[in-house]
């Protein structure tokens, strides 16, 4: 693994499988009396959250603490923080405090890249979501969840059909998922109205469609993305009603899925908009499981970045030492 995890594209197939396999081992931690491992004792992980996200921050915090790392939480409500100064000066402060890893969520695409390559900090940078760019640990936990249900919990996702539906244009979850699922051999189809697909999406390693109904009967997994109602004010779609009628996953559509197919959502959900309440709560919905898988996956990421010798200069790729 490289020194930072900024994009799902940072992981080749071997890296991705290593993370998933490590997460699988760590998932069994919850069955133990002491749900803690000493591995990151003495390491400091900073959660640098410029956007509100209780769920993701708690997930990373739990992951770090279960590995016995020290956790420092820094949250800055984006709007009141003056531009520029905040990221750099905050980073310099964290470096002075000895952060071994910085988990950053920021509203600006590319902020983790700046943090990793500017020379402000020396530790590892984990992208916990940057603007509309990427959210690699979300893609990892999504792949982990899919693997559990569709591939017996091991190996890759070769040949599995995944349909991702929603506001792809503004979705960092979609970008990371498309990249990682392609790496793992899955066939991805993005479904959205034309206004919510980015220019150039035809160059992405996936198919696209404007029609949801024709992409259900063969899907192994359907992932619904959050769609904000406010987008209609910028004319991305005429009304919430029309959006949900054409692209919402309701009970009727869910019934068209194959029996084994799972329903996913990165959260938070807009019940009634992109997903009907009864679908969110159906047995084939793995939305709650995604959350708990998030902790194991984030433990795996933190372990692989920090659990061994300090990884080299930015851009280095090191295979882990595997011993008999």
């Amino acid at each position, binding site marked *: 693994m490289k020194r930072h995890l900024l994009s799902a594209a940072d992981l080749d197939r071997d890296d991705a499988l*290593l993370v998933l396999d490590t997460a699988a*081992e*760590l998932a069994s931690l919850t069955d133990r009396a002491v749900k803690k*491992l000493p*591995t990151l004792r003495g390491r400091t992980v900073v959660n640098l959250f410029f956007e509100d996200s209780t769920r993701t921050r708690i997930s990373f915090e739990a992951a770090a603490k279960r590995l016995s790392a020290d956790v420092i939480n820094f949250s800055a409500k984006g709007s009141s923080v003056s531009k520029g100064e905040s990221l750099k000066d905050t980073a310099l402060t964290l470096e002075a405090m000895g952060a071994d890893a910085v988990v950053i969520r920021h509203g600006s695409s590319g902020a983790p890249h700046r943090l990793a390559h500017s020379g402000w900090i020396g530790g590892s940078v984990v992208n916990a979501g940057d603007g509309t760019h990427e959210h690699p640990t979300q893609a990892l936990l999504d792949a982990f969840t899919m693997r559990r249900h569709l591939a017996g919990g091991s190996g890759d996702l070769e040949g599995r059909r995944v349909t991702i539906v929603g506001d792809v244009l503004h979705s960092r979850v979609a970008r990371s998922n498309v990249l990682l699922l392609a790496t793992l051999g899955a066939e991805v189809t993005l479904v959205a109205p034309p206004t919510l697909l980015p220019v150039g999406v035809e160059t992405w390693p996936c198919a696209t469609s404007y029609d949801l109904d024709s992409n259900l009967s063969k899907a192994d997994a359907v992932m619904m993305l959050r769609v904000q109602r406010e987008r209609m004010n910028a004319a991305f779609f005429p009304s919430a009603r029309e959006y949900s009628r054409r692209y919402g996953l309701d009970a009727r559509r869910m019934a068209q899925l194959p029996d084994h197919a799972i329903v996913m959502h990165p959260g938070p959900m807009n019940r009634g908009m992109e997903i009907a309440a009864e679908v969110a709560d159906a047995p084939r919905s793995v939305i709650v499981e995604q959350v708990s898988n998030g902790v194991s996956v984030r433990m795996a990421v933190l372990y692989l970045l920090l*659990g061994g010798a300090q990884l080299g200069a930015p851009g280095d790729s090191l295979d*882990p*030492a595997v*011993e*008999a």
Partner: protein
Amino acid sequence: MSVAQTPDDTGAASSSALHDTRTVLDGAEIARALTRVAHEIVERAKGADNLVLLGIPTRGVFLARRVAERIRDIEGRDIPVGSLDVTMYRDDLRRAPARALLPTDIPTSGIDDKVVVLVDDVLYSGRTIRAALDAMNDIGRPRAVQLAVLVDRGHRELPIRADYVGKNIPTSHSEKVHVLVTEHDGQDAVLISGGTTTESSATQDTTTEAHA
């Protein structure tokens, strides 16, 4: 923990090691040693009704299963067998990039109040077993922990000793012990290689072997 001598390993150290390698245990001797160890375990356990065998991956797990089979032949009863990966508890993590985890599989009956017999292929510095003890501490509280190894090659760095030993093989630090098991390597054998002072694997010794 033995140095990997699997077909997929490459490197000058292993290929040169094969040149001056001698066999110290062949398949038949290994089988006899395991049988004796199984008997010793049963004898000391006085009935074996709360025994659990935990192998240290990778080869310790196969050896543990073989010992369990022999105990079943002796006592007519199935003994729970599992595996205990100690990677997360190693004391030398920071010396190399993060290692891939190996499987930990604790039998459903758990280890609380059980007599746990750890099974490993080679006992060397004792650090692996120290890590295993710490790992078990976070899983439960055995009544007792015992240690069975196929080979004890000496050079302990911690106050750890084996209860059951297949064979004592005194070695020098510059030598390497290779344990091969059929399930993993296609044959059963214990080999020793090296012994010269110009070992290219001097650093390998400290990072791999020294933690057996």
